[in-house]
């Protein structure tokens, strides 16, 4: 009997069918990845394995058997005995998935005590043991820490420790590395791999990232609109996909070894930063988020800025557009020193949801820069409306979308609106702060293509800030690698990617998931088991 048997599973929320007739099996000790874009229903499947849709109003049909329990038919008590003990789940966002008020060790102990008759003391000891197992240094002491005292990678390790506490037969990991930096992602994936080989538990990995799947599983199930598109061994599906959708998905995945094609870069310097430094906090708590960064941006080129979280990328971007005052150093625009906000330098933000006012129509949001520039007087309203319509069409939306509100658009469309707003002021430089990291790979590719087109047509200079090295490679002419506020490597993109001088850059590049499972296995062997980040 298989560990997991899913037959003809359907899950509906209201009029929406999130999962539509899905069937698959997972044997003991095997690993399967559910891969798909957002809205494909993959996380809904993961929830259904633990009966998490019960009581939420969702309609669940078909049968789900996990470790001998019929999840649909089980009583509340039987379900609770399954959850955590036989099948444990690791969630995407490790910060919000832990209770902020309790010590991490106590939270793990609480789960352990639900499933065993262990004493408080024994449960605490078990918590320390599993924390130690997932590579938390000084586990006995750190078990008393609250989640906010852990780094992102350590929090994800703590969640995995919680999953391990009762030695489950099945580990369900729902986007376990999406919120993490690439080097930390590699460590967590390695950890999952080691634990699987050691304990023989089955792994169901839910991910939108084909690279993550290639690193971690034996089999892949590609999902779209709640249905299975393609199911097979990971090597076969990734190397020789049968279905057009799978191919499309794979083509959209940015490759870290693909060079940028056709650059319209010139030698004309539009933006120049010298010795930029920005401190936060005062007195003993002061630290420099950006420290002595000098760089130039030329007309028509793209400068990529990469680095892990906390490296100062966003602070740098905000200083470049004048949203933050530098503590030291200065910015020259077109050769002249410039302070404060400059209409010719615009910004596109990471989160297209929160960077648009939900209570105003998108037309009004795009019109803001025009009004700020002092567009008024007779016929101003008509002129603004015409310009907004033109901008909407320019970014691939319809002029008729003018009066709609942000929630009526998809993530990719919202990012297009953000770009239209940045274009409204006729900028010469656009600083894009993680413009595509909240988007699916196919949407990502479309937005990247749009930025490239605009650059060629308008001679724009782009500063492209991202943590995803493959995306940055796709778009950049030159590259700046940041670490702890400093520029560690800076030069032509191809040179930095193909022959990095700095050890840190090499480390970053080695952590990028490979699409080839064999290559991934070789790299993993080379990395060995890592310590906690």
């Amino acid at each position, binding site marked *: 009997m298989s560990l997991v048997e899913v037959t003809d599973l359907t899950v509906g929320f209201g009029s929406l069918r999130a999962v539509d007739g899905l069937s698959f099996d997972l044997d003991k000790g095997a690993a399967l990845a559910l891969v798909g874009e957002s809205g494909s229903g993959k996380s809904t499947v993961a929830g259904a394995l*633990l009966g*998490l849709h019960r009581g939420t109003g969702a309609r669940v049909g078909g049968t789900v058997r996990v470790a001998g329990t019929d999840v649909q038919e089980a009583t509340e008590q039987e379900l*609770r005995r399954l959850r*955590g003990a036989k099948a*444990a789940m690791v969630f995407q966002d490790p910060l919000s998935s832990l209770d902020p*008020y*309790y010590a991490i060790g106590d939270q793990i102990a*609480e*789960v352990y005590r*639900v499933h065993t008759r262990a004493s408080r003391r024994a449960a605490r000891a078990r918590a320390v043991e599993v924390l130690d197992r997932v590579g938390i240094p000084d586990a006995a002491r750190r078990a008393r820490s609250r989640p906010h005292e852990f780094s992102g990678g350590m929090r994800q390790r703590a969640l995995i420790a919680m999953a391990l506490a009762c030695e489950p037969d099945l580990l369900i990991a729902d986007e376990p590395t999406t919120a993490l930096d690439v080097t930390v992602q590699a460590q967590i994936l390695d950890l999952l791999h080691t634990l699987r080989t050691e304990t023989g538990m089955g792994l169901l990995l839910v991910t939108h990232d084909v690279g993550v799947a290639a690193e971690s599983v034996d089999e892949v199930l590609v999902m779209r609109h709640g249905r299975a598109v393609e199911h097979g061994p990971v090597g076969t599906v990734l190397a020789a996909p049968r279905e057009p959708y799978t191919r499309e998905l794979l083509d959209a995945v940015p490759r870290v070894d693909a060079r940028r094609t056709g650059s319209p870069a010139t030698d004309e310097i539009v933006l120049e930063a010298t010795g930029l430094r920005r401190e936060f906090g005062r007195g003993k708590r002061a630290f420099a988020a950006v420290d002595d960064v000098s760089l130039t941006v030329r007309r028509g080129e793209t400068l990529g800025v990469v680095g892990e979280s906390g490296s100062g990328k966003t602070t740098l971007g905000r200083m470049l557009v004048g949203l933050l005052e530098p503590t030291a150093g200065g910015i020259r625009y077109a050769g002249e020193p410039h302070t404060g906000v400059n209409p010719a330098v615009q910004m596109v933000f990471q989160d297209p949801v929160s960077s648009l006012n939900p209570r105003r129509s998108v037309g009004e949001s795009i019109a803001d820069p025009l009004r700020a520039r002092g567009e008024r007087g007779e016929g101003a309203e008509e002129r603004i409306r015409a310009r907004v319509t033109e901008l909407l069409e320019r970014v691939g939306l319809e002029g008729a979308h003018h009066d709609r509100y942000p929630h009526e658009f998809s993530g990719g469309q919202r990012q297009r609106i953000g770009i239209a707003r940045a274009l409204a002021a006729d900028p010469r430089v656009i600083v894009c702060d993680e413009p595509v990291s909240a988007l699916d790979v196919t949407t990502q590719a479309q937005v990247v293509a749009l930025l490239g087109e605009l650059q060629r047509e308008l001679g724009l200079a782009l500063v492209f800030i991202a943590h995803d090295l493959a995306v940055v490679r796709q778009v950049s002419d030159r590259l700046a690698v940041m670490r702890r506020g400093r520029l560690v490597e800076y030069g032509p993109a191809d040179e930095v990617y193909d022959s990095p001088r700095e050890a840190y850059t090499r480390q970053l590049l080695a952590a990028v998931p490979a699409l080839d499972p064999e290559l991934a296995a070789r790299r993993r062997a080379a990395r060995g088991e890592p310590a906690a980040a």
Partner: protein
Amino acid sequence: MSGFGGFLLRRAVGTVITLLAISVIVYVVFYVTPGDVAQITCGPRCSPEQVRQVAAQLHLGDPLYVRYWHFLQGLFAGQDFSTGTSVEHCAAPCLGQSYQTGQQVLDIILGKLPVSLSLVLGAMVLWLALGVGTGVLSAWRRGRVSERVLTAITLAGTATPVFVIGLVLMIVVCGELQLLPFPQYVAFTDDPEQWAWNLLLPWLSLALIEAATFARLTRAAMLETLAEDHVRTFRAYGVGERAIVGRHALRGAFAPVIALNANNVGSAVGGAVLTETLFGLPGIGQELVHAVKVVDLPVVVGMVLVIAFFVVLANAVADVLYAVADRRVVLA
């Protein structure tokens, strides 16, 4: 808890500045208030000559800043008052002398304060127990009939004025059932048992009103926490609903309850006038209303300062509790 001493010091300095600012405002407000203070103080049968004497004795003719300066002097250095025949010394911190009775304001306040504190602190225990308890129950039984009944009761509680609840309680408990005598204040130091029995009804009426707010706040905060990701984690690990509501969701309601409680306790010290009047409790609120009526400036200033002090104190305590409850909070 690093920097706790610094926190206390900053708070203390802030409190003194706040209180001084409040005293200035009260002085100005009373200075510009129309009405002949000397006439009111002296009484309706005084002759104009007597009224002039009173005005001179109370320094009512002095400009505002001179009178305020005297007040400050008294506060920090003490003051002497002539009562016609003898000179009375009022040691720092001297809040002055009542225009009406010639009593020292501090003595008046110290006489009333135990009554107000007894009422408020006792009621607080009840309203926290009733309010948070009801809130937890309705969060746990959300969507069921029992929750709707609880919600209706708490709504009725918020909507009923204190004198209605108090009167009904008194009529039923003391009048009809004769379970308790009609309340009469007995000092805790005289007879703790009688103190509690006599205050029981005032506590209940004040607490019933406040409890409703706490119940709704607790319920809302818990429902918000129940929708958070970490609750989903514990559900997915087989933790039962009781532990989820009692441990994880309740903890999320701590901060808002602490904050609201600080404000309510602070303001109830001087603001429970209706309850005090209804039950005949000689507390701060009643005295303050009387002092305002007869324009007894020193008493009003003193009372207002004491009330403000308790509001500030309650909020400082809340900040410390915040930091203890949630380690992410840094005292500053």
